[in-house]
């Protein structure tokens, strides 16, 4: 089977009664890398969490389909089983559960009963992916994200990405908190996933990540919508000129959600 398609149509999302996403359309196909940029508080993380099924977000209108299947009907774990993945802006810490137990449990949940990965195979895979991301082996026995530095958490998210091999991944500010070397390592990891079977949505504030991972499409989010889309050159221009020119072009005074009339 060729790559998957994630199709978002007319999406509206509320949290605690206030609307954050206000009609958003986006299609991501296997083999494509999309980037979403946009000022703070414009709904980028909300979009990512809502697609993955965060319980606090309510979808009031619109649809999300993965290869024609209604994603919004699925439980969070079922979305993962269907091939979706979200690297979170702020990954949770889980005390008492080792990174390695967590990862094995996740892999086995995705493979299903009777098809569990052998311990040897799991260890070999985990070892090699950790090497690839230059994560010290000791992290496999540490409790999940507990006491990890900001950068270590981000690397650990990418480790999970490489271990779980989803068909569609959303990476929310995977570059924030990374030093230059880590940025290279993480980018290399993401690039290693590149294939016609893998579609990716990268949420970022900085062009620097996109120097390592060339996006096919770049979208700008403001006021809970995609207000402009283009190619890799759009990110370049944003880096140089900021967002003011877009606001001017579109007559937007305040880009944040909820502030406009």
């Amino acid at each position, binding site marked *: 089977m060729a790559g998957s398609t994630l199709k978002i149509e007319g999406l509206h999302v509320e949290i605690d009664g206030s609307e954050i996403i206000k009609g958003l359309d986006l299609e991501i196909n296997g083999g494509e890398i999309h980037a979403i940029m946009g000022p703070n508080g414009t709904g980028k993380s909300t979009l990512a969490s809502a697609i*993955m099924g965060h319980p606090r977000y309510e979808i009031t209108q619109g649809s999300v389909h993965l290869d024609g299947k209604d994603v919004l009907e699925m439980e969070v774990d079922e979305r*993962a089983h269907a091939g979706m993945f979200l690297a979170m802006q702020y990954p949770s810490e*889980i*005390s008492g559960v080792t990174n390695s137990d967590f990862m094995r*449990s996740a892999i086995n949940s995705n493979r299903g009963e009777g098809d569990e990965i052998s311990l040897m195979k799991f260890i070999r895979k985990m070892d090699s992916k950790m090497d690839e991301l230059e994560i010290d082996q000791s992290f496999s026995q540490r409790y999940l994200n507990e006491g990890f530095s900001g950068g270590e958490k981000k690397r650990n998210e990418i480790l999970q990405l490489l271990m*779980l091999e989803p068909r569609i991944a959303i990476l929310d500010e995977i570059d924030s908190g990374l030093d230059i070397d880590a940025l290279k390592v993480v980018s290399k990891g993401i690039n290693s996933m590149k294939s016609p079977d893998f579609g990716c949505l990268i949420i970022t504030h900085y062009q620097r990540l996109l120097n390592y991972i060339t996006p096919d499409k770049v979208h700008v989010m403001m006021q809970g919508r995609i207000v402009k889309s283009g190619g890799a050159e759009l990110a370049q221009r944003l880096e140089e000129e900021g967002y003011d020119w877009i606001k001017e072009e579109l007559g937007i005074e305040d880009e944040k959600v909820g502030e406009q009339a």
Partner: protein
Amino acid sequence: MSVDTKWTYDENYVREYSQKRGEPEWLTEQRLTAIRLADELELPKPEKTNIKTWNFTEFKHDSGEAAPIQSVDDLHEDVQALIDRSTEEQNLIVFRDGKPIYRTESDHLKEQGVLFLDIETAAREHSDLLKKYFMGSAVEVDEHRLTALHVALLNGGTFIYVPKNVTVEAPLQTIYWQEDPEAGLFNHVIVAAEDNSQVTYLENYASFNREQSAVANIISEVYTGQNAKVSYGGVDHFEKGVTTYVNRRGYVEKDGYLEWALGQMNEGNTVSDNTTVLQGDGSHADTKAVSIGREDQSQNFWTNIVHYGKHSTGHILTHGVMKDKASSIFNGVTKIKHGATKADGQQTERVLMLSERARGDANPILLIDEDDVTAGHAASVGRVDPMQMFYMMSRGITRTEAERLIIHGFLAPVVNELPIQAVKERLTEVIERKVY
């Protein structure tokens, strides 16, 4: 006694029962005093838990003779699974409904003069020694109706005696198996470790029938002599129908060390009292306990350490998980008496609730009558963070599996610290059974 038509346990019954077992006069007398007391005394009143409606009176007391078995292979496979096989040397007594049905002990134990006997045999063959410890300084018959009933109706248990300067290498293990789901267990355990001795004792309480109702009324007395060390490990796993009163008491003399490792995993309503008296200077107690409550179970746990000795140290660490509609009260009491200078009392109680309908209370209590001490406590009652749940499920982990991981993770700081490997393993298995 509350008016109950089924209640047939009176002085005559108790006297006959005692005589049938060939008990010494003093024990018969103690039983008779106790059955009279049971009439007058009230039930205990554990704080914030109403036990008045709990079944403490409906059970079958005398399960008759039990045929011994020749080999552990003849045991129910769930019972076999409880046997600790971590050491080559095996010292084990298996009880069925209070009666010993299998016993093995190393020759080494006999050579050392160690007694490891069911309490019925101990009463007949070592009457004087048993009398010295039975209902001794750790516990009183007239504390309340349940202690009195316990003595009156005592029908099983173990007597362990370790002479001075003797170190028992391999653990002594008992399994108290309730096979008849209506059998009431009035189980009494004594561990008497004389000065400079060392012993590890492991016990498992188990039943496998979920439906019928019965009572377990358990008292343990642990006497830790000067400079002696006792490790006491227990995993309780009675099924839903069994109402449990369990009272484990310790008494520690100068420089003695008593450690408790308890997995309180009953499925039915439970009142637990675990009290250690640090009598001697430099005595030390360490209590670690974990618990999981589920369905509509109600439980009340008291963990007390009482300091009399100077430089005595007492540490309590309790973690509990509440699921479904379960409710539990965790009380930790550190009492430091006047004169116990330089005593150190620390306690931590943590409760995790997995459902909206679960209830958990953690009450750390420090009662200190001495200035020159160190004492501290920490307590928390929390719920699973929905962000954690979302995070785990977003990786494909089902809600049940995520709960399983979170429960293991929450209990890990206690389980990993348990001093007895066999208890750790048994407990991990029971936790595994309880998380789904």
